[in-house]
């Protein structure tokens, strides 16, 4: 049996149950068992769905725990410190310890808080993150819900999260939480538009909104969509990092400003749920990027040997590392700069990208030239266009900070210009210049 497994690197995935490269064989075998045992029709349907959800929920549960550890270690290494290494070997049990601590902590609820909303909010915030994964194809025929409107389903779920976060902040009836939730809503609503527009470009190329079709498109044309659509990838990455409240856009729980944002009043497992939800949403967005832009379970012929779902997990962690990386280094935008960035930079660029892609797709459909000739040409065009557009946009829209050099000037002695004293000195001296706004 092992021989067959090893001898079949080139053979397509065999369909006997122990071939773990495609888990759908396993679930298929279980369903056949029920069938042979004479179970009613709807039972196999229900059990099939249950098996799928069981797989996804266990994946997301495990990943949420492991990611706490990975994130703290990686950010630790970036800050030239070790990160958790006390609890268990290499600190691996640290997330488990955190989870247990959070579970046994008492859940405080402020007296003035609104009970129903206060409890529903964290749950409503976690569920969309998990539901997002139902649509992701993990293998050639390993997908829980092969929706034909996969991409729109992803947008729907992320917009639900916005409402949940807002009522969480509102429910806890605390000034800082209100700030946090107002900021979150402004940000999420603003950043949904660039997200939708950027993925539109991808859908136009792939010709279908079904995620499995998108992966198959990339498999057939032997390229990743990130090469074809670098601008869409950039826009999607930046807007989703804003949507996930991760630096450089973690406005919602900006510790230094509004200490804790929307989950400031939460404690115990409710806060644990918010904390896990953030990680789950981050993983969900990384999976979307991995599937749509980096080719899901397909990887240049390797997916026959290595199981598809392992490739997807590898890509998830590649994208997730970049999220951690930006979180470790970049400071935070201010709320008005962030919103201006979305309206004045991301949305127009996404629209230009869609126009270009429309032209290319029409050219491809009408002329009917072979993909082999056109696609490399498109890759070159799109890459050049991305670079040109970004440089031009920076030149046109960038705030004029450069009027002062970045480094101070050096004096070797004291030099005090003789200045008239400000005319009249009230409590607020008129000498103070009005705050010149840094318009973005």
């Amino acid at each position, binding site marked *: 049996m092992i021989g067959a497994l090893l001898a079949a690197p080139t053979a397509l995935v065999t369909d006997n149950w122990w071939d773990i490269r495609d888990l759908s064989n396993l679930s298929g075998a279980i369903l056949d068992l029920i069938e042979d045992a004479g179970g009613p029709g709807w039972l196999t349907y229900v059990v099939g769905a249950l098996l799928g959800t069981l797989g996804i929920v266990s994946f997301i549960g495990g990943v949420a725990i492991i990611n706490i550890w990975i994130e703290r270690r990686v950010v630790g290494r970036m800050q030239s*410190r070790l990160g958790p290494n006390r609890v268990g070997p290499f600190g691996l049990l640290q997330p488990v310890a955190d989870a247990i601590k959070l579970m046994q902590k008492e859940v405080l609820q402020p007296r003035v808080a609104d009970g129903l909303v206060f409890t529903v909010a964290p749950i409503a915030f976690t569920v969309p993150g998990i539901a997002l994964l139902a649509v992701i194809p993990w293998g050639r025929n390993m997908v829980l819900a092969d929706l034909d409107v996969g991409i729109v389903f992803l947008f729907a779920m992320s917009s639900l999260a916005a409402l949940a976060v807002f009522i969480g902040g509102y429910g806890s009836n605390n000034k800082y939480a209100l700030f946090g939730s107002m900021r979150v809503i402004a940000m999420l609503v603003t950043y949904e538009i660039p997200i939708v527009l950027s993925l539109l470009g991808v859908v136009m190329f792939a010709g279908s909104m079904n995620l499995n079709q998108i992966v198959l498109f990339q498999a057939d044309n032997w390229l990743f969509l990130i090469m074809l659509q670098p601008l869409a990838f950039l826009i999607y990455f930046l807007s989703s990092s804003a949507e996930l409240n991760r630096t450089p856009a973690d406005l919602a729980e900006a510790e230094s400003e509004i200490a804790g944002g929307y989950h400031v009043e939460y404690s115990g497992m409710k806060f644990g749920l918010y904390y896990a939800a953030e990680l789950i949403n981050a993983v969900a967005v990384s999976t979307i990027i991995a599937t749509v832009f980096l080719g899901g379970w397909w990887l240049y012929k390797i997916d026959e040997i290595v199981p598809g779902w392992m490739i997807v997990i590898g890509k998830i962690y590649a994208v997730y590392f970049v999220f951690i990386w930006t979180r470790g280094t970049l400071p935070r935008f201010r*709320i008005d700069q962030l919103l201006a960035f979305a309206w004045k930079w991301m949305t127009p660029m996404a629209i230009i990208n869609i126009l270009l892609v429309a032209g290319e797709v029409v050219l491809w459909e009408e002329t009917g030239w072979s993909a082999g000739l056109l696609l490399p040409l498109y890759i070159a065009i799109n890459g050049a266009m991305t670079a040109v557009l970004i440089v031009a946009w920076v030149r046109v829209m960038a705030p004029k900070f450069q009027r002062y050099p970045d480094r*101070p000037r050096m004096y070797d002695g004291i030099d005090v210009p003789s200045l008239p004293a400000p005319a009249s000195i009230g409590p607020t001296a008129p000498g103070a210049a009005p705050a010149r706004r840094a318009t973005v």
Partner: protein
Amino acid sequence: MAIKSDLVEVNIGPQHPSTHGVFRMVAIIDGERIVDVKMVVGYLHRSMEKLAEERTYTQNIPFTDRMDYLAAMTGNLGYVLSVEKLAGVEVPERAQYLRTIFAELQRIASHEMATGAFINDCGAWQTPVMWCFRDREKVLDLFEMVCGARITTNYMRIGGVAFDIPDEFLPALDRLINDDLPRRFEELEQLIVGNEIILMRARDVGIVTPELAINASLSGPMIRSAGIAWDIRKADPYCVYDRVNFDIPVGYNGDSYDRMVIRIEEMKQSLRIIRQCMSDLPAGPHKVDVPLALRPPAGEAYSRVESPKGELGFYVVSDGSSAPYRWHVRPPSLINLTVLREMTVGQTIADAIVTLGSIDINVGEVDR
């Protein structure tokens, strides 16, 4: 027609992650814009000036550590210089060089803390803070090697320094100054200086005009960021500052970004000073012995030192007895806060936090 929104009073502090200690800022805000700021200080007031009147001149030295606990060496130095001026004590050459070296090391440690905290207020999630703290730890190790304490050093004495440096101090200092810190500062600069997001967050935030800077008697990075080249080490040189050459950085726009960049540049100038002091460090006694219950002649003296926060002055009045009759400290942090209202009104809360971070106050010195 603007949306009518009523004013909300928000307490920033005293228990707040970014107010550098127990400092409370009551902001009246309209939406996110600040309409008025009221400062509440005094949470850390230990009335040191009253206590000092009960102790001899030597017993007062530990007070200066605990005032600006991030720059204890410069605190000691300031007080000791004023008493020496009052009592006319001559300090040996070696002590003067050692004092300069430790004052500059303390400036590096304090500026590391200030820059790290400032970037943390801008929102960078702890990474620059950790880098700055790692370098600051190295400097504190040197302090520990010399006087046993890292923060409250209590190292200067009237007439010199408490202990001479051990033999392994100079090689450790040489390794730190010449091949470790320059690389670290380079790393820090690449991460921060010219970083677009920090430019967007810190440029044109918390602006001080030159006229206001002079009139509000600001000092240190605050007055230099407004474009006025004023540094006590140049204007009124003490110790060996007249024998070493170094530059003072001056900003253009008087905003938070200028202050941050000035602090980084000052750290690099401190390296230059320490190198020159190390090369011509003379031998000889490290202290002139002064009676423990020194009785300076009746009179008064005001002397000042360029501490990392600004001009730290000591006004000591003596009535001939062994305890100072009056012991007043010019607190640069408190006086730099005079313009907090002018800098933050009209800006958002996020800017106010960044401005407060850029002023770099130390609540121990504000409240004394």
